[in-house]
C-alpha cells in the first residue's frame, strides 16, 4: 500500500489554497502508509529565475552561511530555509551550476528537485508532521502531488520518500512495485541518467525524464511506460505545466479521480477528495487500466 494524491487547478482563484487542499488530501491518506511523506508544489515561476530544493541531515551546519558560501563560489543565490530543506533561487542560466558548486562546498546535502517552479519537501514520518514541518499549508501554486509511503522495495529514508524528481520541474509519485527496475536502471544509466537510490519508483521517474528528453510530451512518455515498465503501478506525475495519471493494465492499485470546472483531483481513495470544494457535483470516476490521462496548463491556454 501507499497513498497518493494530486491536484491540478484550472481556476487560478484556488491557487492560494493549493497547499492547504493538498495537505488535507494527503493527511487523509495517512493510514495507507506511515513510513515517509512528501509533497511537490508547483508555485508561480519568477521570470529568469530557477530554484533548487535541497535537504540535509544536519541543516544547522549545512545551511549556515550557505548564501554567503554560494556567492563566494561565484554563484549568487537567495536561500530560503524550511526545517531540513532549503530552496536555493538562482538565475535560470546558472541552474546547471548549482549541483557542482554544492558538491564542492556542501557535499552532504541532497538535491530533492529543481526547476522553474517546483519545490519538493519529503521526510520520514507521518503526513501531518511532514506538512507541519515544511508549512505546506501556506504554499500557493498551480498544481501539486503528494505521497505517503508504506515501503516495500527500498529502505525507509528521506531519499526513499516520494515524490521522485529526476528532471527539471518533473516529479512522480507511485503506488505499487516494479519488477524490472534493476534492468531498466542499468539501461538508463548507460543513457546518462544518474540515480540517488535503489528505489524502483525513482527508475520510473528517470524513465519518464529520459523519454521526455527524447522529445515526447508527458502523455506520450506515459504511453510508452505502459510497454516498458513491468509491475504494479498507479503513477501521478507533474511537469512544469502538466499533470498526468496512468495505471498498469492489471490496475490493482486503487485510484479515484474527480474533475470540476475548477480542478482535476486524484486520490488513492475517494476519502482523499471529500473536502475539495464542489466535490458533490464533480465528475468522479475510476481511471481505466492502461489508459493515460493528462492535463496541461500551456496546452489548454
Amino acid at each position, binding site marked *: 500500500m501507499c497513498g497518493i494524491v494530486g491536484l491540478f487547478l484550472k481556476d487560478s482563484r484556488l491557487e492560494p489554497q493549493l497547499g492547504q487542499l493538498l495537505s488535507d488530501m494527503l493527511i487523509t491518506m495517512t493510514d495507507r502508509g506511515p513510513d515517509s511523506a512528501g509533497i511537490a508544489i508547483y508555485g508561480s515561476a519568477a521570470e529568469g529565475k530557477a530554484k533548487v530544493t535541497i535537504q540535509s541531515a544536519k541543516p544547522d551546519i549545512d545551511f549556515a552561511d550557505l548564501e554567503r558560501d554560494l556567492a563566494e563560489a561565484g554563484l549568487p543565490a537567495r536561500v530560503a530555509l524550511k526545517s531540513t530543506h532549503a530552496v536555493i533561487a538562482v538565475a535560470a542560466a546558472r541552474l546547471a551550476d548549482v549541483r557542482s558548486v554544492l558538491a564542492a562546498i556542501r557535499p552532504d546535502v541532497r538535491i530533492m528537485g529543481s526547476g522553474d517552479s517546483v519545490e519538493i519537501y519529503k521526510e520520514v514520518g507521518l503526513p501531518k508532521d511532514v506538512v507541519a514541518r515544511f508549512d505546506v499549508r501556506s504554499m500557493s501554486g498551480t498544481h501539486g502531488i503528494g505521497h505517503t509511503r508504506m515501503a516495500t522495495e527500498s529502505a525507509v529514508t528521506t531519499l526513499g520518500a516520494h515524490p521522485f524528481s529526476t528532471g527539471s520541474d518533473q516529479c512522480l509519485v507511485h503506488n505499487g512495485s516494479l519488477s524490472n527496475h534493476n534492468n531498466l536502471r542499468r539501461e538508463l544509466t548507460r543513457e546518462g541518467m544518474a540515480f540517488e537510490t535503489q528505489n524502483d519508483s525513482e527508475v520510473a521517474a528517470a524513465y519518464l525524464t529520459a523519454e521526455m528528453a527524447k522529445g515526447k510530451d508527458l502523455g506520450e512518455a506515459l504511453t510508452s511506460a505502459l510497454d516498458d515498465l513491468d509491475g504494479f503501478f498507479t503513477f501521478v506525475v507533474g511537469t512544469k505545466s502538466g499533470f498526468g495519471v496512468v495505471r498498469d*493494465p*492489471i*490496475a*490493482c492499485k*486503487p485510484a*479515484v479521480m474527480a474533475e470540476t470546472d475548477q480542478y482535476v483531483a486524484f486520490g488513492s*481513495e*475517494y*476519502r*482523499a*477528495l*471529500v473536502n475539495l470544494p464542489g466535490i458533490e457535483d464533480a465528475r*468522479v*470516476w*475510476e481511471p*481505466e*487500466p492502461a489508459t493515460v490521462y493528462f492535463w496541461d496548463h500551456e496546452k489548454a491556454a
Partner: protein
Amino acid sequence: MDASVKRESLEAMRVFDLVKTPLRELNSALHTIARGRNDTNFEVVNPRGSHAVAVGIDQPVTVDVRGSVGYYCAGMNDGGTITVHGSAGPGVAQNMMSGTVIIEGDASQYAGATGRGGLLVIKGNAASRCGISMKGIDIVVHGNIGHMSAFMGQSGHLVVLGDAGDALGDSLYEAKLFVRGTVKSLGADCIEKEMRPEHLQKLAELLEKADVKDVRPEEFKRYGSARKLYNFNIDNADAY
C-alpha cells in the same frame, strides 16, 4: 403531528452521522439487533468514503447510505438490504451470504467477490474483477464491467447490461454470465453458450429483481465454462 406518532417514526429510522459518530457504533448497533425487533431501518449520512460501512449484518435490516463509501461496504451481508446512494470503493458486498445490496452509482474493483448468495445490483459501472470467485451470488450491473470479471466463478449469475472488459470468465467453473453489450475478450476456457429457455426465464427473473425495465432477456448472450480446464482429460495422462 401527534407526539406519539412522531416518536414512533423516529424510532423506526435510526440515523448515524459518520462525521459525529464512530463507524464502530454503527456496525455494533447493526450487530446487536435482537431477533424479532422491528426498529430495523437505518440511515447513514456523511459516509465520506469510509471503509467497512455496514459490514457483517446478519438480520433483515434496511440500511440507506447517503453518499459514497470506501472499501468493503456491506461485506458478508446475510439478509440485510443495503442501498448506497452514491458510489462504492473496492470489495463492495464481498462474500455476501444472502440479502440485497444496491449501489446507485459505480462500484470499484472486485465487487461481489466470493459472494455465496443474495443479490448485488450496481446501477452504474463496475470496475475490474467484478464477481471474482463468485460462489452463488447474483450480480446485475446496469452499466459496464472491467477486466477479469467472474474470474474462477463457481456458481451464481453475473448479468451485465453494458459491455465487459478483457478476459471475461477466465478459468470459469459453473457461474453463468450474461452480457448484453460487447465482450472485449473471453478468458481461458470461457465460451459463448446457447441461450436456452431456462436461461431466458432466470434472466427475466433477475432483471425484474434488479429493477431493470425495457430490457428483454433475448438481448443478452450467455457465456460459460467450456469445462476443459477444470476437468481432467484422460488424453493428458502422459503429462503427469
